[in-house]
């Protein structure tokens, strides 16, 4: 499901995030669930600050991966998938 350009997702403030070498771990104290994020999902999570549009996330992710980055279509799909995962699990703040 594509994320609309105007959408600037924001993560819930009560969630706890811990960076790890291969990505990140999110703890939801509400449901006492732990989510494991791979490196790109962790990057997207850190961009879910209410200030980044998905296009801006895409630009930043591509820049961080450098010349060896996958093409933008692939990266955009990864970003959309991550955001949808966050939304589906109730990890984003209400709009």
């Amino acid at each position, binding site marked *: 499901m594509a994320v609309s350009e105007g959408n600037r997702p924001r993560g819930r403030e009560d969630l*706890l995030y*811990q*960076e*790890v*070498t*291969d*990505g*990140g*771990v999110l*703890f939801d*104290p509400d449901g*006492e669930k*732990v*989510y*494991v*994020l*791979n490196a790109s999902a962790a990057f997207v999570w850190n961009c879910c600050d209410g200030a980044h549009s998905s296009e801006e996330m895409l630009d930043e992710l591509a820049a961080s991966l450098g010349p060896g980055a996958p093409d933008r279509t692939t990266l955009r799909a990864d970003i959309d998938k991550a955001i949808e995962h966050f939304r589906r699990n109730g990890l984003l703040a209400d709009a």
Partner: protein
Amino acid sequence: MNKVPPIRVNVVLAELTFPIRVEGDSSLAAWVRETYPISRDGRGAAPVHVSWNPGRGILRHDGRLIKRARSREELLQFVEWHLAGEAIRRWRPRAFLLHGAWIARGRDGVLLAGAHGFGKTTLAVAMALRHRWRLLGDDVVIVKPGGTVRPLDRPVRLKPGIASALPEVRRLPVGFGPWKAGWPLLVPLRAFRRSSGPAPRPRAIVILGPSGPSEPIVRRLGEGEAVARLARFVMNFRDRPAEALERLASLARRASVFHLEGGSLARRCAAVETFVSGRAS
């Protein structure tokens, strides 16, 4: 029964001292001294009070009744349980407590974590009795600030069923009376230790799944998954979840974390050996 005047014994457990007043039966005091490291006995009042007269055992703490017991075995079980509970309560604010066993070979420590019934104790005891590893703690491990791991060095509780998987336990230098009375055996850790050694550092963490007859399935976990799985076994995770996550991440960075499912006891022991030999992938 050999009745003696009350005495005070200072039990040392997990770097904490528990003065205990023992009353009624000399064998009770002897059990305390055989089961726990003791610091110099002192005089005067002690918060924990244990007394045994035939058919009547009493355990009190600060004057409050904790347990009445009809048998000596039942009383000893509750004394052990109470002391461990007090040690956990006192460590809880300053460290994280993880369900697991702590074994070591030389400086290489291996933490065996997992849900109840998945064979942590059996594997830990097998590594000690069959492979000469040091068994430093069973049931609870303390993860201190800075990442040092130390065991809650309570006695190992062995249920009778372990003897079918591990007949060697019958050669342990302990009395097996509790099994006849239907209680777990409380085996002091010194019965397993071959020698004191250097304080081990966590080299590997093994999260155990259920055992089975087939070949064990071993999977090395990435740090994220390791943290997520280990969080389930931290007893006081909810007290300070952000700090717990950070502590687990630090642990997962320093030690290789594996998930081990299935496998006979012998195969599991072999797998543990590979985790510190560097042969595990």
